[in-house]
């Protein structure tokens, strides 16, 4: 069993729910990731349960902070903090040099400028429409009849990406269908999709001001084509943590640890 103060962070996102347990030194003792599904509250409970089992503690042994879209649903949390602050803190914990963070989740993409103390200084979130989010890629993968895991590698095969110009997911979908009908190669279409998405994120980045070094988190950070195009658009190298989906939960855990209560 762990000793000293323990922190739990639970990040209830639109697609996945994540939980992280850390000890007083900030080392990760346990983590868990699962699909949120329809019952976000249950997913949060289940995630906490899993990490507690792994570390052989009970939820009451630790201080919990909830974050993410469903942060209000984390029953045991003594406090709720938005995912933007948590991502900043989490990334800062892993790599204190990072000054700009691009986090692309299922229905949100965010660009956060991180201050020297690891707190957000400025941020931008995509507007209501899903262009530039994980959902956009999901829709496009379905149209191209490939899995999400296959989409990025497919796009990297292209030398001449198609022009996919529509900003709106629904329009882009019919544009992609049009491209397929016109006989364009699937890898060129896939590359066009990633480039279009990267340009949307680049605009958000320019709005908060592009500062180096840049980190990328969220599920889409594992997509190699997305990384390729965003790094070209911003003319910059990108740092990606080992498990890029966990930084929000990690940040929440770090904040829980720091809380005087």
């Amino acid at each position: 069993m762990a000793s000293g103060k323990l922190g739990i962070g639970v990040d209830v996102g639109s697609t996945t729910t994540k939980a992280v347990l850390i000890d007083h030194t900030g080392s990760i003792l346990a983590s868990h990731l699962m699909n949120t599904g329809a019952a976000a509250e249950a997913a949060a409970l289940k995630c906490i349960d899993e990490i507690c089992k792994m570390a052989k503690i009970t939820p009451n042994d630790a201080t919990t902070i909830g974050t993410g879209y469903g942060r209000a649903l984390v029953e045991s949390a003594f406090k709720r903090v938005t995912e933007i602050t948590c991502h900043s803190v989490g990334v800062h914990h892993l790599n204190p040099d990072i000054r700009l963070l691009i986090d692309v989740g299922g229905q949100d993409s965010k660009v956060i400028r991180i201050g020297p103390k690891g707190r957000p200084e400025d941020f931008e979130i995509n507007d209501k429409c899903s262009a530039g989010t994980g959902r956009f890629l999901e829709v496009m993968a379905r149209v191209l009849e490939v899995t999400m895991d296959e989409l990025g590698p497919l796009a990297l095969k292209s030398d001449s990406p198609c022009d996919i110009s529509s900003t709106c997911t629904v329009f882009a979908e019919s544009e992609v269908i049009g491209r397929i009908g016109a006989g364009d190669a699937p890898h060129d279409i896939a590359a066009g999709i990633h480039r279009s998405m990267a340009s949307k994120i680049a605009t958000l980045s320019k709005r908060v001001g592009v500062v180096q070094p840049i980190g990328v988190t969220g599920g889409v950070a594992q997509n190699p084509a997305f990384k390729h195009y965003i790094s070209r658009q911003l003319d910059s190298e990108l740092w990606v943590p080992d498990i890029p989906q966990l930084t929000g939960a990690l940040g929440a855990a770090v904040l829980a640890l720091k809380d005087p209560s």
Partner: protein
Amino acid sequence: MTEEKAYRRLESSKELQQISFQHMLEGHHASEEGRLAWVTSGFPVEIPVAMDVGVVYPEQYGAVVGANKVGPMVCGFAEDIGYSSELCSYARASIGSILKPSESPLEGLPKPQALLACNNICGSVLKWYDAVSELTEAPVFLLDTPALDVEQQPHHIEYVRHGIDNLIEFLSTTLGSTLTDERLIETAKLSSEAITLWQKSLKACKAKPTPLNCADRFLTMAPVVSSRGKQYCVDFYKTLYEEVESRVKEGIGAIRDEKVRLLWDNIPPWFQIFRFFNGMAQRGVAFPADTYTHAWSGAVEADDPYTSVATVYSNSYLNKGLEAKADKMEHLIKDYDLDGFIMFSVRSCKRYSLGQMVTREIVTERTGVPGTIIEGDMVDSRLFNEAQIGTRVDALLEMFV
């Protein structure tokens, strides 16, 4: 149809390049001399021109950005600094080109010393020019011509008339230029002459087949927007009218095989202008009239030019209500013997586009001809869904077979 193209190129359009080159040259020259104004398309340009102020048109520049198919990129520069992608794409294009001239067509417009906005075409011009002023530090003058609900009332004329006095004062204090009545009358005469010739060419399109198609008019209207009050502008419209007249005399149509005659409503998609209209031409569809090029109709009268400016420019097409728009469409359809109409719902332009859904019903009810609405934008090709537009246009054309 074998080798022949569906669309016949206009000989006089070859002169356009020279005119636009000269126009840009004049603009750069004026800018270097510290007397260049950026003006909105509906501005009473006779006054600055008579005061020897150079003028260039950001709206026309927006069309150039669109035609060069770089709308999304140049508009994107403006979005990068916080201008919403929901805003007018002419505005975004010009703001974008100020931010990154080296990456924009023609390296942007020459630097202005004054910004002249007249809200007779829309309310956004004020906001747009304010934004441009922040970036260029050129002062803005707003000529306020409140939209007309009913007929223009005496207090409205009076108010706009005072605005014109303020304009003259603004130009003389900002740019140090002066105005004489002789110069104004001379400029107004040249301006009216060009407009009258232009209208004759437009009216000639009542002929079957029509001597000018939509794209012809959209391109040849450039000088009447940008070079009103100049002799070379008058000369151009003489040449154009001669060609139009001879086409009519010889029964030569703008398109080879005119089967269907349609009315076009609103600004065109500049990035698709040839592709769209020539594609229609291949299917035998001609556009003998449109509401856009018919908007430049008022000629300033020389006997009382100041009051005439106040009335003519307040009564522009877009400064009047929906009733006036429906009337115009109805008359164009009847006078030009048109079979139907296509309304382009332009997301950038609320003043032109909001109301199209009811106007469509009214016009069909009054004329008995069908119409369809297609959606998109004039510069921002990201909003143009070709597949959806194709379906709507096809459905309309199927009604004529």
